[in-house]
C-alpha cells in the first residue's frame, strides 16, 4: 500500500541527504519525494510517497521523527488534497492538433508551448487524473515527460 507522508524540516543544508540516507539505510522505498519552501522561511516541507504496510509506515514515521532537524511528521493518506504537475511534450502534426487541444481542454490542462510538430502541455491534478491524461497522449507519441511528484495537504482547518 502507498502512503503519503508530509515532513516539516528545518531549512538547512544536508537535511535532504539525511532523509534520503535514512530511507536507504532502513530499506524503505521512496516512490516520490518533493521538497519545497513553506509559509515560514526557516522551514521546508517534504512530501514523500512510500510503499509499504502499516508497520513500515510506522517505522518510517518514527525514524523520521528521530532526525534532529525534523519538526513534524504527519501521514496524510486520507481526506487530503493531493496535486502533481506534469509537463508532456507530445507529437502534434497539423491533422491531430484539433483533437489534442480538445482533450487538453477537457482535462483543464494547458498548452504552454507550440512548435512546428509538437506541443508542451501542462497538466495538474491528482495522480489518477495525470495518469489518465498521459495515457490519452500516448496515442499521439510522447516525446518527453516530466512529473513533479506529489504535494499534499489535509483538508479543513489547520490543527
Amino acid at each position, binding site marked *: 500500500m502507498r502512503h503519503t507522508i508530509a515532513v516539516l524540516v*528545518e531549512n538547512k543544508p*544536508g537535511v535532504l541527504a539525511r532523509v534520503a*540516507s*535514512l530511507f536507504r539505510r532502513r530499506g524503505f522505498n521512496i516512490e516520490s519525494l518533493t521538497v519545497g519552501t513553506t509559509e515560514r522561511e526557516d522551514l521546508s516541507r517534504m512530501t514523500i510517497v512510500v510503499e509499504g504496510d502499516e508497520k513500515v509506515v510506522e517505522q518510517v514515521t*518514527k525514524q523520521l*521523527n*528521530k532526525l*534532529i*532537524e525534523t519538526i513534524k511528521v504527519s501521514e496524510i493518506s486520507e481526506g487530503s488534497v493531493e496535486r502533481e504537475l506534469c509537463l508532456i511534450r507530445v507529437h502534434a502534426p497539423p491533422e491531430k492538433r484539433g483533437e489534442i487541444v480538445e482533450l487538453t481542454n477537457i482535462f483543464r490542462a494547458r498548452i504552454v508551448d507550440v512548435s512546428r510538430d509538437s506541443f508542451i502541455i501542462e497538466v495538474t491534478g491528482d495522480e489518477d487524473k495525470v495518469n489518465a491524461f498521459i495515457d490519452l497522449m500516448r496515442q499521439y507519441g510522447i516525446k518527453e515527460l516530466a512529473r513533479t511528484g506529489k504535494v499534499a495537504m489535509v483538508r479543513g482547518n489547520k490543527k
Partner: protein
Amino acid sequence: MRAADALVKALEMEGVEVVFGIPGGAIIEVYDAIYDSGIEHITTRHEQGATHAADGYARASGRVGVAFATSGPGATNTVTGITTAYMDSSPIVVFTGQVPTSMIGNDAFQEADITGITMPVTKHNYLITDPKDMLKTVKEAFHIASTGRPGPVLIDLPKDVTVADIEFEYPKKVSLPGYKPKMEGHPKQIKRAAELIMEAERPMILAGGGVIISNASKELVELAETIPAFVATTLMGKGSIPENHPLCLGFIGMHGSKYANYAVSESDLIIAVGCRFSDRTTGNLAKFAPDAKIVHIDIDPAEIGKNVRVDVPIVGDAKKVLAKLKKYVQYKQRKMWEDKVSEWRRKYPLKYNPDGFKPQYVIERACEIMPDAIVTTEVGQNQMWAAQFFKVKYPRQFITSGGLGTMGFGFPAAIGAQVAFPEKTVIDIAGDGSFFMNIQELATCVKYEIPVKVLVLNNGYLGMVRQWQELFYRERYSATCIGCEKTGFEAIARGFGAIGMTIESPSDVDDALREAKEIDAPVVIDFRVDYQANVFPMVPPGAALNEIIDEE
C-alpha cells in the same frame, strides 16, 4: 578569540577533563589551543583507539567522552568507534579536522567527506562552515549526545574555521525545535502496565542497557522486589541488577543461561525496560515468549514495536517510569512460578568441563580475586564467557560492544574506563584475535601510565567462528586458525614497556591474577587455554530461546 581557543574553552565549560585523539594538519589549531588548557589529552596510537577510549570513558562514568582526529584518514579511522557507540547508545562527541572551506569538494590532500560518511552512524553530525556557529554547535552536540537516547555526535572543523576570530559567548540554552525527548511516560499507560503486572502469574522483567544509561538500577531493583519478579537482563543490561541478587537470573539470549531463557520463554508478562529486542537476545522472534504480554518501556519510540508486538508501550526515561510504576503495584506471591524458576536454576546451572586449562576457569578466578574490577571485553567467545562467569555487582561495571560486536573494542575501552576511575582495577577480558586488533594501544598505556590489565584467553583461533565451523560447517576450519600459540604476548608486552606473563596451567592462575592486581602498571597475561573449549549453552541460529542446547 581564535575559534580553536573558544572551542577548548567551551569544552571546559562542558566539564570535559580528558580528550583522546591524534593530532594532524587540519586540526593543528585545536591542538595548539588545548596545549595551554586544563584539559588532559591522551594521544592514542590509532584513531579507532581514541574513539573506543572515549566510549569506554563514557560508559564507565556516564559522562560524555570526547575524541579528536584530523581530516581524511584520521577521520575515517574513527568510523568503527563511532558506529560502536551508536549501536550501544553511548554518548561521545568526536571532533574531526577538515580541509579549509574553500577547498571542500576539491579532493584536497587528506580530504574525506566525514559528515557524509558518518550520517547513518551518528545521532547527529555537523560541518561548521561559519565560525560564528562554533559555540552553538558545541553546546548542541553535548546536549544531543547526552540526552534522550544518547549517541555519538560528530563535528567537522574546517581549518579556516578554527583560525577565525570570534566572540566568546557560550550559549546557556540550546534551541532545537525538532528535538524534545519524552521523559515522563504516559500516566494511563503506566497504570495499564501496573494492571497487567497485578494480573500476571509469571511476570519477568527484561532489563536492557537503557536501565544502566538512565541510572535506574535502584528503581529497577525496587520494582522487582515489590512485584516480586525475576529479572533477566540483555547483554547490555548486565549490571543493571547485582548478579548475586536472588531475583537476578543473569542474561538471556544466544549464550544466556538455560534457566533465564526458559523463564522468559514461559513467562506470561514481560516488562522490558530500555532494551531493543535484538536478534541475539530474542532468538527466533516468531517463537519468542509465546504466552507473554509485553510492556515495553523505552525512551526511543522507534524501538517500540520495531521487533516484537507490544501490548503496553511506554515512551519515557526508565528511571522516571520505573519509579512511577512501582507506586501502582503491590506485592503478590506467585509460589508456583517461583518454585518452577528455582527448580530450573537448580537443574541447569551454567557449567563447563573443568578438565585441562579452560578459559572459563580464568574468568571465574578473576571474578573471585577482583570482584569490584571494571570489566571490559572484546568480542566473541571471550565476551560470552565473561558475560557468563564474571558476576558483576554494580551498573557500569561490565563494558562490552553488544550491538556492533567490535573486536578490538575492549582494550581501548578499558583505557577510557581506567582514565575515568584511576583508583579502580580495570581488566580487559580478551581473545588473542581481538587483542591484536588494537594492540598498539599498549604504547598509550605505557606512556600515560594507565595500569589496565589484559587477560588474553589465547586459544590460537578466532574462537567463536571456529565454534560455528565445528558445529554447523562440518569442522571445516576455514581461515580461523591464527596461530597465536606461536605469538609471545609476554615478549610483546615487554617490547612496549609493559609487564607480560605467560600462564600455562590452571594452578598458576590465582597467583598471576593476584600479582597483576597489585601491579600499578599495564599488564598483559597470556593464558594458554584449551583451544577446543566452546561457549555453551547455545541457542542455535534460527531456534527459539527454549530450544537452547548443551555441549553434549
